[in-house]
């Protein structure tokens, strides 16, 4: 923003071109550094169990969050945001848990993903065709989804079976003492996301729209089509994350993943994705999700209450986002 730039210039040592280019071009380096520091801190304050098993537990907890954060990364690249992922993830986990008894697992999964995709389609049409601000659109849809899920819950008193055993194995099991089963799902998913972003025309279009929507439209990109597909992808990813959430906690509730919504935005922001669009990558987001998971494990092992965790989370988001803004010289609207 011109005004802000005219009035403030960052501290001189931070604008040194070397540090700037590291942060701008290789955001993974400082992020991995931060992660390493956190792991060391965690070892120091709670000596002992930094082991392969500990790493497995951390990764297992970070995986569903990383998927939700992937939704935020993708949508934030186009200068949007998807605040319906929490509601969609909870809904899809809940749908499967209530349907699996009657329809069998494959059918239940298909239904949950189709419903997620419909929600994403509505989001995409609202944001792409009607030009509603994605924040409002997805916030409104999260209300709709939550309400409908509650109605569904009343219509269908949940049978005792609950979360299918397959989800529990997928979400919670750790093989060989260190390898979370959820990686079987996550690694291909992450590779696909990164492939889409880095190697396909669709990925280029996401960056282009986020960078300058008018310019991309004038160069022939149909932004409404891109956005519609994007929000469908985002909602389906959220639906998949919902399976893992319900498996990890062995709970199926209509508000299960709501508490992961804000951390998912935080993970993307920490991972270097710009909320203005056009800058960011999924690899950073994954590290961001891991960083958040390690921090909350440190805090809970120190016996701090949930409240302190929230305060630190919030402060960390502001701090990291401020550091990015300073270092990359990108200013707000």
């Amino acid at each position: 923003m011109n005004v802000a730039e005219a009035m403030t210039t960052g501290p001189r040592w931070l604008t040194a071109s070397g540090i700037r280019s590291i942060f701008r071009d290789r955001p993974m380096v400082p992020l991995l550094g931060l992660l390493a520091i956190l792991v060391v801190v965690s070892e120091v304050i709670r000596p002992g169990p930094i082991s392969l098993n500990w790493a497995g537990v951390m990764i297992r907890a970070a995986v569903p969050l990383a998927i939700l954060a992937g939704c935020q990364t993708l949508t934030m690249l186009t200068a949007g945001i998807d605040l319906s992922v929490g509601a969609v993830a909870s809904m899809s986990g809940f749908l499967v848990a209530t349907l699996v008894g009657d329809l069998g697992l494959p059918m239940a999964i298909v239904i949950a993903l189709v419903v997620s995709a419909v929600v994403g389609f509505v989001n995409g049409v609202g944001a792409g065709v009607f030009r509603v601000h994605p924040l409002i659109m997805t916030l409104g849809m999260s209300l709709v989804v939550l309400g409908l899920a509650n109605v569904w819950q009343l219509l269908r008193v949940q049978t005792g079976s609950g979360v299918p055993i397959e989800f529990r194995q997928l979400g919670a099991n750790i093989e060989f003492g260190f390898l979370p089963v959820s990686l079987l799902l996550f690694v291909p998913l992450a590779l696909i996301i990164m492939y889409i972003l880095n190697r396909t025309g669709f990925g280029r279009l996401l960056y282009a729209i986020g960078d300058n929507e008018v310019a991309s439209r004038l160069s022939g990109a149909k932004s409404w089509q891109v956005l519609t597909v994007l929000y469908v992808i985002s909602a389906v990813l959220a639906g998949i994350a919902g399976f893992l959430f319900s498996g990890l906690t062995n709970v199926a509730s209509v508000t299960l993943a709501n508490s992961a919504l804000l951390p998912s935005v935080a993970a993307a922001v920490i991972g270097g994705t710009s909320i203005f669009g056009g800058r960011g990558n999924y690899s950073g987001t994954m590290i961001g999700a891991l960083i958040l998971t390690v921090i909350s494990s440190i805090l809970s092992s120190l016996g701090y209450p949930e409240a302190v965790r929230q305060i630190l989370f919030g402060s960390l988001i502001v701090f990291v986002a401020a550091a990015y803004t300073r270092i990359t010289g990108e200013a707000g609207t």
Partner: protein
Amino acid sequence: MTTTLDTPTKSTGSPGVTLSLLVRRNTWTLGLVGILALLLVITRMIQPNYGPAGIQGLAISVLPLALAAVAQTCAVLARGIDLSIGSMMALTSVVSATLMEERSEGFAVVVVIGVLVLGLALGAINGALIVFTRVPDIVVTLAMLFVWAGAALLVLNTPGGGSAAWLRRLTLGPVFIDWVPKAAVLLAVVVAVFWIPIRRSRLGLSLYAVGSDPLAAFRSGVSVTGTKIFSYVLAGLFSALGGLSLTATTGIGTPVPGPYTLMSVAAVVLGGVSLAGGTGGVLGPVIAVVILSLLRTDMTFLNVDTNLATVVQGLILVGVVMVGSLIQMRRRET
């Protein structure tokens, strides 16, 4: 459309012209009033004995929501958005409830003033962080949502505390006649006392200036930084008022934020305040809150599930914004 451009020069003319100008400037608000009137008639038809008691209940449930909506309006007018309003309300509510518990009525006055100052401080922190870190408003206030909610949990882990009797009496019961609830009068007085002087002052004007075009405002000598912070300070103040109203109406403090942030954004959008900043006032959002609450009441009268009521609220929010942007697109094409 050309006629609207030269209306300001005509406004000194006959009262008829002034009236038409007033109508044209407030089309959206007047439309909302119309919808509200229609809704009241419908309510009366559904529930023939909907009367003073119903209005009382409505006013009490509207009070904190309306204050949240006014707080959001202040932030949105200057082209910001405050997602931490619900948490600030929770924090101010628990602080006031813990301090007032089993204390004298006189001490409660000090507490009320102290909590309002706390609200100003919370807002100032939000605003200063946004301005000085240059991080987008959404990200900062999203983060502060965590921080204030955490702080509220530290102050009071479970719902508790108390409220001074005079504060409770301020919101419960009617004024003069049964049809005028105290809560509604209180809302009108509070908003009038804080908002009208601001709206009329230089600061109010600069809020709108920064909201409609920060660069132009900067070049005309308005302090963009100061105005931005000021808008969040106002949002903090009204959130603190909202928190106090929560303590007053429920008699306790609850550390978990209610749905106020979400509802405030919905109310602002429905109330005709553009999220791009610079247009609208506080009246529209307040009426929008009343409409949303009345819709909920009507749906309970009709035995509609409260969850479906949430769905309807979400659909209204999305629908109104869609129609609004469609109209804008049409206008741009012609």
